Structure formats: structure tokens, C-alpha cells
């Protein structure tokens, strides 16, 4: 009798300890997030900047139509179903009923009609279309059914509907019309939080959306995004508890944070890649031997180490290992082999000298200078020029003055959004590529959309065709990190550099 009594006694103690309020995780609190850049606004038709601070500050307010489950199946969020026409030119989305925007307006098909009406009539549409595809028009079939009509078959739209693609985030339609330009400062979405105050350049404060359909998922009482410029001040702020979370692309900061036992660091190997593209229409880079030699001459691990403290991995195509479109590194990308590089240059037989342009961003400047050094060892001379990011940079690229340029290819959700720079018939063919094999492979990748496996095989054939001609050098897939104090619970890995911080909670 004595032994069962002891077990029962110990069991009771354990249960008491486990249910003690001091040990229970209370969901709630205020989450303070450090932003690297000030918020520039919520209306993407006025302010289409894709940088991650802005997108993350928008995320608590808005929702996607669908998301993917762990098994890769489509899960409804604001939409209930999606189907495409046979030619994949028309996409029909059925919306959930009974959802309200944070101002109480009903969520329905007219929200998307109004949303795209504003976008398509804005000057930013040319820019936004690159992210949502060739949308011709958006029509409300009934209150909860919306039809998105494309200019051409567009299989990539399924991925756009199910990923956090910010130009898809709709505002309350009546509110959008009423406030006009002020929508940039007064967003109204269906998400779990809503903007309560914004002091430009200082902070943004979010409170619970009273109309959110699932209050149980609104763990936090408040979210505050504070502007703290610079990696070191932000890291010090997380370490000292002045803020709870920071997001960064900087490898040195993330690696430093990993050393601190009071911090948690969650990294995402981001798809997309940093690259160096070549103008293949004129000497010396019109010769594939020279382009191959330049690829063989570079130690890409050294480039990654120098430009971002080794935070990421050298890339072999546009998609990284986290993407279903990743070609498993089997694209035939040239290995670091200085001997081979010298041999190819010898075969070319003429001095190699060209002009390269880069942006004044640490990763790009360091990368450009390192490539210059590697190539100099092979006897290749490169004149490097620095041009600010934005239109001036892309004008410099298109001007024909430069033979090579550094460019970052963002995380695309589908191969259908890739390849514009290497398709001979495309206006955006900045590399002046004219390789029939590449064109054929790309057309195949764009068209074979009925079966995903065939589509992926076609896409990887396209990447191999590009690598064979080498109009581009792949540099690296960079990591993105969420650095948080240990008392921030429920943190999940980011997706496309978007972190669902509003789904966390803080224990004090």
C-alpha cells in the first residue's frame, strides 16, 4: 500500500506544479519589433516598394486568399476554392462568407474588383504586374465569386494566390474610395490586427481587429514596429530587451545573435539569388568561352563569406532547396577551377577587358570587388562603376554602356515569373541573349502546365540551357533571419522573407 500511495502523492505534486499559473504559458503581451527602414506606406498602388520591412509591417493587417499545408495542399484563408479554365487564362476564386474588414465593411468580390481597378489605373501597375501576372481584368461574378482574367495562359497564378504576394492584399472597398490617397496611411484589411497609430519614421502600433473571425488566434494585445536604424543598434536592442524581435538579411548580425543563449534565431534560406548578368551581344562577353572562364574563376564560397559572412549557400539556379522548383543542384553549374578558366581564356586568345556596374549595397559592392579580384588573377581587367539603386541603375544596365551588372533576383513563387532576361523575344532581355536552345526550353517550361512534374523537368532543362550558355553567373541564395528573445513564443519560419509575427505571443 505504501508504494502506490507514494506514486499517487508524487503524481499529485507533479500535476500541481504543471498547472501552477506561474508555469502556464499565458498568451498575450505587447510585441515590439525593430524595423531597419521607416515605413513608407500601405497602399502599393502609390507605394509599390517590395522591401521586407514594409511587407512585414503590412502583414498583420492583411490576409492571403489561400495558403499551403505541410502536405503541399491548398488551404483556404479568405478563399474557399479556386479553379482555372482549361487554357489557364481565367481563374475563378470563391470567397468565404461572413468575413468583415476591420472597419466593419463586408468582405466580398467587390473588394478585389475595386482593389485591381485602383492598381490597374495606377502608374505602379507596370511594376506590380511583374508580381501578380498579366491580369487583364477582375470581374465579380456574384457577391462571393471573383473571376481573374489573364492576357495569356498563366499557370503561375495558382502559386500567386497561395503565397504572401503583397499586391494581392485587398483593402476595404468603400473605405478605399472614401479616403483616396490617404489609403497609404489608413489601411483597412481583414487580418487579425489593425493599424491604430503611425508616427512616420518612429513607430507603428497595431491593435486587435474587433471584427476578426477567430479571436482565439489574436494572442498579442498590441504590436509595435519601431524604427531602429542599423544592424548593431537593433541587435543590442534585442539583447537588452528594448525590443523583442528583429528581422535581418545581414549574415554577421545573425551569426552574432546565434552566440547569445537568450536569443532564438530562425533562418530561412531564401529563394531567388544574387547574380551577375552579361551583355552577350558584344566582345569579349559574346564568346561563351570567356563567360565560362569567368564562372570557373570565382570561388563562390569565398564570395558568400566575404559579402554576407557565409550566411546562405551558393546557388545553382533561381530557386533554392526550400522550393519545389529547385533542380537539386543538377544544373551543370561550373565549379571553381582556375586552371580551366585560364585554359578557356587561352583558347579565346585575346585580352579580356570589360565594364561592370553595381549598386552601393554592401553585398553587391563586396561581391563585385571580389569578382574583380578573382578575374584579375586570370588576367581579366574589369572597370567597376557604382550607380544608385532604382531607375538610374536599370537605365545604366539597359544603356549598353556596361558588359556586366550585379542584380538580385527576388524570391519568385513560380518559374512562370522567371526567365524574362534570357528570352530572345522579350523586351526585358537585358542580357541580349539569342540562344535558340534557351528559347525552346523556356517556351516548353511556360507551356507544359498540365502536369507539375513535367513542368518542373522543363524548367530545370531551361536552367541547364541557360547555364550552358552562361549569360549569367549565379552567386548565392541568401538567408533571412528572425532574431527574437526567448520569451517570444510561437515563432515560425518566414516565407518569402515575411514573418507572421502577429501569430506569436510574449511571456514576461
Amino acid at each position, binding site marked *: 500500500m505504501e508504494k502506490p500511495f507514494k506514486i499517487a502523492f508524487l503524481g499529485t505534486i507533479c500535476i500541481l506544479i504543471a498547472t501552477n499559473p506561474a508555469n502556464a504559458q499565458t498568451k498575450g503581451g505587447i510585441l515590439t519589433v525593430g524595423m531597419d527602414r521607416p515605413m513608407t506606406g500601405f497602399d502599393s498602388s502609390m507605394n509599390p516598394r517590395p522591401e521586407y520591412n514594409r511587407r512585414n509591417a503590412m502583414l498583420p493587417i492583411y490576409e492571403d486568399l489561400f495558403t499551403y499545408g505541410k502536405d503541399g495542399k491548398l488551404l483556404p484563408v479568405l478563399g474557399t476554392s479556386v479553379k482555372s479554365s482549361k487554357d489557364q487564362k481565367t481563374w475563378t476564386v470563391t470567397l468565404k462568407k461572413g468575413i468583415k474588414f476591420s472597419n466593419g465593411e463586408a468582405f466580398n468580390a467587390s473588394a478585389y474588383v475595386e482593389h485591381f481597378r485602383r492598381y490597374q489605373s495606377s502608374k505602379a501597375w507596370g511594376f506590380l504586374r511583374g508580381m501578380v501576372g498579366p491580369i487583364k481584368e477582375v470581374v465579380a461574378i456574384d457577391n462571393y465569386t471573383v473571376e481573374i482574367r489573364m492576357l495569356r495562359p498563366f499557370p503561375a497564378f495558382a502559386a500567386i494566390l497561395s503565397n504572401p504576394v503583397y499586391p494581392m492584399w485587398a483593402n476595404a472597398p468603400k473605405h478605399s474610395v472614401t479616403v483616396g490617397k490617404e489609403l497609404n496611411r489608413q489601411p483597412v484589411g481583414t487580418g487579425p490586427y489593425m493599424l491604430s497609430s503611425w508616427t512616420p519614421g518612429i513607430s507603428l502600433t497595431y491593435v486587435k481587429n474587433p471584427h476578426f473571425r477567430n479571436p482565439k488566434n489574436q494572442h498579442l494585445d498590441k504590436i509595435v514596429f519601431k524604427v531602429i536604424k542599423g544592424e548593431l543598434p537593433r541587435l543590442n536592442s534585442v539583447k537588452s530587451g*528594448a525590443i523583442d524581435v528583429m528581422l535581418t538579411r545581414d549574415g554577421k548580425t545573425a551569426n552574432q545573435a546565434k552566440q547569445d543563449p537568450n536569443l532564438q534565431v530562425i533562418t530561412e534560406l531564401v529563394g531567388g539569388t544574387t547574380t551577375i548578368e552579361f551583355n552577350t551581344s558584344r566582345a569579349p562577353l559574346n564568346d561563351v568561352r570567356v563567360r565560362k572562364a569567368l564562372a570557373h574563376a570565382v570561388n563562390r564560397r569565398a564570395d558568400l563569406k566575404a559579402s554576407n559572412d557565409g550566411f546562405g549557400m551558393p546557388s545553382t539556379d533561381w530557386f533554392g532547396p526550400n522550393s519545389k522548383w529547385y533542380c537539386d543542384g543538377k544544373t551543370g553549374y561550373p565549379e571553381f577551377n582556375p586552371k580551366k578558366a585560364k585554359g578557356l581564356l587561352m583558347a579565346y586568345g585575346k585580352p579580356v577587358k570589360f565594364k561592370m556596374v553595381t549598386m552601393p549595397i554592401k553585398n553587391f559592392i563586396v561581391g563585385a570587388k571580389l569578382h574583380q579580384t578573382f578575374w584579375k588573377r586570370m588576367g581579366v581587367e574589369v572597370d567597376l562603376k557604382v550607380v544608385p539603386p532604382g531607375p538610374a541603375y536599370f537605365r545604366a544596365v539597359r544603356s549598353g554602356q556596361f558588359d556586366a551588372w550585379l542584380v538580385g533576383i527576388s524570391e519568385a513563387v513560380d518559374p512562370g515569373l522567371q526567365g524574362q532576361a534570357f528570352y530572345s523575344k522579350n523586351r526585358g532581355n537585358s542580357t541580349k541573349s539569342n540562344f535558340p536552345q534557351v528559347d525552346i526550353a523556356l517556351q516548353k517550361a511556360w507551356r507544359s502546365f498540365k502536369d507539375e512534374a513535367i513542368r518542373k523537368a522543363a524548367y530545370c532543362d531551361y536552367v541547364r540551357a541557360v547555364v550552358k550558355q552562361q549569360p549569367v553567373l549565379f552567386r548565392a541564395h541568401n538567408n533571412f533571419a528572425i532574431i527574437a528573445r526567448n520569451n517570444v513564443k510561437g515563432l515560425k519560419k518566414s516565407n518569402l522573407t515575411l514573418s507572421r509575427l502577429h501569430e506569436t505571443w510574449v511571456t514576461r
Partner: protein
Amino acid sequence: MLIYIRRKLLHSIPIIFAVTLLSFLSVNLLPGDVAETIAGIGTDNAVMDETVVQDIREDLGLDRPVVVRYLSWLGYAVRGELGKSYQTGQSVSEAIALRLPVTIQLLLMAQILAILLAIPAGIFSAYRAGKLPDRVITTLAFSFLAAPSFIVAISLAFIFAVLLNWFPATGYVQFSEDLIGNIKSFTLPALALALIEWPILCRVLRNDLISTLQEDFISLAKAKGLRPFHILFRHALRPSSFTLITIVGIQLGNLISGAVIVESIFALPGLGSLLVASIHSREILMVQGIVSLMAVAYVVINLVVDILYGALDPRILR
């Protein structure tokens, strides 16, 4: 006295005019096209439409000559209209009004801390002139004087916020919200500025005190058997503070430039951090508004010092 003040005020008008003109020109001399830079912000990997650039250029009036733009800006500025932020739509006056109290509190706290450090150190240094304590204080003073403000600020943040966790590394708590929190959020930034400021005050006071301590009335006090503490604080300090007070006024203006760096490091939402952010994002109207305000503040502080100087030494009024 009134004539003196009026003369000084009249002198200030062309100075303020010249300063605003120079600042306007210097903002326009920043490298790169303003419209293109604004369009390029946050688009590191993306191509922006050229029409966006043209829109920005027209909205900001960048297609007009600089002089025309300056006169137009001046016309509005004298009526208190400093324009709006291109990116957020916030008015420049509103942004300045929001951030000015933060900068004023920072400067005042920094100045008080600097005086609290400088006076005891200066007195002790003068009392022990040429001896070990004087040398130690002098070495310390010159070390801080030589240290760049960002190094001092980062070191303070690392020691007192990250290692000891006594103060927040960044952030700002409003005075009305939490008094203790407010003082804590200003302590490290104010200390960072004060540590660079105190050596000058300390050296000035030390030198003046050394001269004063050689005066006959001090010898008389010593002969009367007064304690050194009494002699230093009651008899020597007051006549030696004349230069110190003048320098405090002038240095307050210099502190503004230090605040630009320190506010950014400690993420204090003052005018300094706003200026840095506005320069990065080419918010020309915001930059112009802040620079002009700082210039006016500098002129006003110096005017007040001049007036005080005149009041203390009537010979200057002639």
C-alpha cells in the same frame, strides 16, 4: 542695452538668410538625382517605371531652377509652411514639432551631465595642478575629447544596456507616460554627449581656477584658516565661472551636431535621427526644414550668449 540687442538681432537676419540659402544649395548638391533616388528606395532588386521618376520630379518641383525653388520655399517658410514629406505625406512642421522636445531634453540632460562632470573634475584638477590627480584627469579629458561620439555611444550601449542591462539600448519613453522610463531612455544618449562635452568645460574651468587661486583674496582666505573646500567652492569657483558659462552656451550649439549621431544610435526620435533618415531618403523639404531650424537655433543661442555677455561685461555694450 536695447540698442545692443537690436543691433544683434539685425545682424542675425542676414545670417539666418545666408544659412538657409547655403543649406538649400547644399541639399541640392547631394550626389545623385533626388527623384531617381526616391524612386529607388527599397527597390534594390526591382525595376521601377520611369514615369514614377517623372511624377516625383514634377511633384517636388525639381524641374524648376534652384533659385526659384529656394525663393518659393522661403516664401512659404516665413509663413510657417515648410512643406510635406513626399513619401509619408506628413507635414515638415508636424514632424519637427513631434521631435523637437526629444532633442531639447537630450541636449539639456547632456549639458547638465557635462557640467556635473566638469565642475568637480576642473576644481580638483586646479587644486592639484601639475600633480598626479591633475594628470589623470587631463589624460581622461583628452581621451574623451579625441573619441568619436559614435564610439562612445556604442561602447556605452554595449556596457550598460547589453552587459549590465541597466538602461535600454534604444527607444524612447515619453515624459508623460513614465518619468523613470523617460529618464532611463535618455541617460545613455545624454551621457554619450556629455562625455565628449565635459573635457572642454573642465579644461576651461581648471585654467581659470588656477589663475584665481593665485589672487590675493585667496591667499587672505587661506591665511584666515578657511578649509580648502570652502575656499574652492565659495571663493574661487564663482569668479572663475565667467568663461565656463560662455562656453556652455556656445557648446550647446555644437551639441546639436553630436545629437545627430547619438540619436540615430539610440533610436531616439529626435531631430537628429529625423535628419539622418531624411538625408538617406532624399526628403529634401524635411532636410531643409531641419537644417534651417538648427541654424536658427544656433544663431539664437549665440545671440543669447552675446546678450548675456553684454550684461555681464558692460564694456562690450559700447
